[in-house]
């Protein structure tokens, strides 16, 4: 079976009807679910956080069978994922979609685990360090999307697990953990 980068594609990726938005309700439901799983799996493996509808996304076309998703199809599938809480539209025009292959809550748990693993219970770090510092190398937090990270941190702040503060420069935010 084909691969996209190092991601193994399922057999049905070569099934032409998979790329046509199905009109019959039950068939379409199944199709939507299959695309949802595939998109989330792919994004997780490639650490893709953002899908721009108007740009080419490798998963949305298959040159082997000469098929690609229509704009309407992309919108339908992504909106379905948004509806289930695993993605968010970043703009009203539905052009950019943030993919939450981990939910925000999941990311929050991952951060807490990260803090415990590295003994950072009472420490201070910059937000940037959380995503690109040496401690995060090889963990899921490496390269995490900033928007998502901020949301997870805010969630933890509301729970009293940390405090966010502005740093010396405009985009240099810091975190004080009190886990």
């Amino acid at each position, binding site marked *: 079976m*084909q691969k996209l980068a190092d991601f193994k594609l399922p057999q*049905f990726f070569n099934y*032409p*009807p998979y790329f046509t938005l*199905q009109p019959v309700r*039950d*068939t379409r439901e199944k199709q939507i679910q*299959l695309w949802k799983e595939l998109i989330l*799996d792919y994004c997780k493996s490639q650490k893709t956080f953002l899908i721009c509808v108007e740009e080419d996304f490798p998963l949305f076309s298959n040159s*082997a069978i000469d098929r690609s998703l229509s704009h309407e199809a992309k919108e339908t599938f992504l909106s379905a994922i948004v509806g289930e809480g695993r993605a968010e539209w970043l703009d009203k025009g539905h052009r950019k979609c943030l993919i939450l292959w981990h939910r925000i809550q999941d990311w929050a748990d991952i951060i807490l685990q990260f803090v415990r693993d590295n003994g950072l219970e009472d420490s201070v770090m910059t937000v940037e360090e959380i995503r690109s510092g040496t401690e995060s190398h090889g963990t899921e937090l490496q390269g995490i999307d900033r928007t998502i990270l901020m949301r997870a941190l805010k969630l933890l702040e509301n729970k009293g697990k940390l405090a966010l503060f502005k740093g010396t420069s405009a985009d240099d935010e810091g975190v004080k953990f009190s886990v």
Partner: protein
Amino acid sequence: MASGSSIGVGGLFTNAEVTTSGRPVLRRNEVECFLLSSVDFDSDDDPPRFTALKSGNLILTTHRLIWIPSQSNGAVPSSIPLAAVTHIFSHKKSIKSMFHSPRIRFQADPGSVVVTIVFRGKGDFDGFLTKFWECWRGRAWDEEDKSEAETSRSGGSATVAQGLYGNDGTVRMVGLAGILRKEQEQWESTDKSLQDAFQDLNALMSKAKEMVSLAEKMRQKLLSAPSSQNSSTDDEEMGSKEEMQQWMLSVGIISPVTKESAGALYHQELSRQLADFVRIPLEQAGGMISLTDMYYHFNRARGTELISPDDLWQACTLWEKFDVPVMLRKFDSGVMVIQNKSHSDEEVMSRIRMLVTKTETLRAGVTASDAALTVKIAPAMAKEHLLTAETKGLLCRDMSPDGLRFYFNLFPEMDLTNLHIVKDFGTYGEWVKATSILSV
């Protein structure tokens, strides 16, 4: 022979044959002229000389008076040949007759029985009376006997003559030249016949019967086995013969039901006639035919007195009321078809399923025209079937610049918990095998 009160005493009434839809079976050259409902046949004598026929449809033809019961009350369709009518009593209009149902009295053999026809329904009574006189005076049955005698006569004289010219000085029909000349003469007379027919409309109406019987004769000739001619012309002949035959088969109705002769019953009788006619084209088309195609076939067969699309549609909708083996069906897309009641969706679905699970169609799918070729129905019908199959979940669609194709629906077999699993059993596995040549 007891002069009792049973039908058929002395053979006055004969049983009339009817089709399964309740239409009378007409004899060769017999043409329907009038149709009225709610008609009784009473015996004028006391005690009555036959059992009265109550409440039926009366059909006047060039040869007979046919009475068909409108309810199944045990009565049998009956007829009296016009040849047996000896006298029609004149109808005097009086104050008394204005308040009663109109009636006609006539006398018929055997036994000079006086019969009264009582018209209890609404209808053109005067028109009927006129037609009754016309048909009785027309003596259509006499002409037949005459023409039969003529052919036997001319056949007799031809055998005696020798050489090219016959005894009466006309060119004899021998050999290839004779056949060609015979054809020529027939076409010339047909041509002349056509010319006459177009002189005026009334003449055309009477020629119409001739036209149709001419067509019938030509059909008979084409159906007969070909004589031994040189083989090089056979193929051509067979080809054009088949064409002619197709054309002739569509000319099968001698007496079209017309608005004039049936009046208010027009749609009902049309409906019954249509149900009879529809059988053959329906079979040829594989059990389902669009309303437009049927409009074409039916009017073609009628030749004259064409019916409007609306009349056709009305006639079809009336089928619900009768017990006929055909029905009108409307698809979601608005397409209307006529189909046999026995023609089920299940049967079509299974044919489609067989088609799409073949290795080649698993891989490449089917278009409407592919399906039409395999299942042998018109492409428009094929698309309807495919769409129905899609709605039922048997198929799913693939839309591309190449057009619309349908595939066997594999979606139900895909596993959401593990996208890579392909079960050993199931069509999904078959499809994977069928496409293994393509995958990288």
